[in-house]
């Protein structure tokens, strides 16, 4: 059963992505080249169709949005020059603002990454991993990598903070004040 057509949703996606959704004629090129189709719950061409049909809830709750790697294959190969990857990005912005994140671990990783940037100005890889593990409550699923990477001396144990930390904080703060969803 499908929900009724949500015209506002279609208009919002078009405006935010600056793409004309009507141009998609369902050739399937995007899905054919998408390396993540095997992991998606809804293939990317069907997401395009759902958006055209104004199916907001079904679109914004799908897992695929959180697995798209922005590899740009779809955008590069769409015969109608639709920037499909940008639409995928816009859809996950909307999903985030509405509180949907069915691939929770992915969202936690991204959030931890940005918090690291906000706090140190640059990503502090070891700190980011520690935070991710603490938040997901998972044991570090990559424990097999520890003996490979630690002796290489590549994981810095201290952050490399920048001087302009205040500027970084203000970027994020102003973004929130302007209504952005972190």
């Amino acid at each position, binding site marked *: 059963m499908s929900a009724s057509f949500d015209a506002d949703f279609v208009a919002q996606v078009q405006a935010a992505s600056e793409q004309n959704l009507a141009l998609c004629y369902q050739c399937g090129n995007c899905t054919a080249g998408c390396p*993540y189709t095997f992991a998606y719950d809804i293939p990317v061409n069907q997401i395009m169709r759902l958006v055209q049909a104004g199916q907001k809830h079904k679109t914004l709750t799908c897992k695929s949005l959180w697995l798209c790697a922005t590899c*740009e*294959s779809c955008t590069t190969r769409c015969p109608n020059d639709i920037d499909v990857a940008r639409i995928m990005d816009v859809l996950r912005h909307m999903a*985030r603002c509405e509180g949907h994140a069915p691939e929770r671990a992915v969202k936690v990783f991204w959030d931890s990454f940005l918090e690291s940037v906000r706090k140190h100005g*640059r990503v502090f890889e070891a700190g980011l991993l520690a935070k991710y593990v603490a938040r997901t409550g998972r044991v570090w699923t990559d424990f097999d990598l520890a003996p490979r990477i630690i002796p290489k001396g*590549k994981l*810095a144990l201290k952050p490399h903070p920048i001087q302009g930390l205040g*500027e*970084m904080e203000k970027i994020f703060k102003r973004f929130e004040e302007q209504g952005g969803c972190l």
Partner: protein
Amino acid sequence: MRGHSFAYYPGCSGLGTSMEYDSSTRAVCKALFVELHDVPDWSCCGSSPAHTVDHVLSAALSARNLAKVESTGRETVITPCPSCLTNLRTAGHRMEKPEFRARVNSLLDTPCKGDVQAKSVLQILVEDVGLEMIAASVQKPLKGLKVAPYYGCIMNRPPEIMQFDDHENPMAMDRILAALGAEVVPFPLKVECCGASYGVARKDVVARLSSKLLDTAVGLGADMMATACPLCQMNLDLRQEQASQHSGRAYSMPVLYFTQLMGMALGVAEAELGFDKLCVSPDRAFEAMAASTIANKQSERGSRV
């Protein structure tokens, strides 16, 4: 000889997981008379996580750095990392629209005009330094070394933004490797995605995508893969055992940054190339290359007698 000079954006991974990419890039540039000037007090471009949250926020994180470059009066900033490059270029491209630029600048202390161009280290090596100069600087040719060049998904895509090389069959790295004397195998998955930053949250996805790339390189008889991307390198090298477990085939494929191979051929001191930072050691492949060079020389001598 006229040298070159660029602003340089190392990217966060250059301080950690891809330190050998950063150090080999610096060493190779020095050897080829390319001066690098680090962007003063550079900050993270936000990488993928930022653009998955919001495009204005993402552009602002890049624009803070572009504004720093503007303040130095330089026009071009180069970076080894394709993910940083995409963000810097996308920000620049979108800020051509005054309305978008104003929104970005509303988040920044120092506004960004948006007239600095970002390019990859790979691009300036091919276009500004040039293949002739690279070939002429080779001291130890990589004769007999079979290398599969892997560009990753975003070095050249989308073409409207990246504006460099072919988006389905890029050749820049192939040409550099050939100029170094290596045998370049025609790698059909040059622009396939390796799983990007999903290694942490969904390593199953990465293992599957990476094993496809590794299988193909093995099938082509490559001695090693060359890459230009820190995420690709990490997925294929650090996570190679996870890929082996996924596919049931035990890989032992060295995955090097192309700049490490350049450094080797240009006679740069090994300490700057960081071969010891790689998980799958390239030593065996290099030894085999050296042995075949000696064997070839002997057979040449033999045939002359």
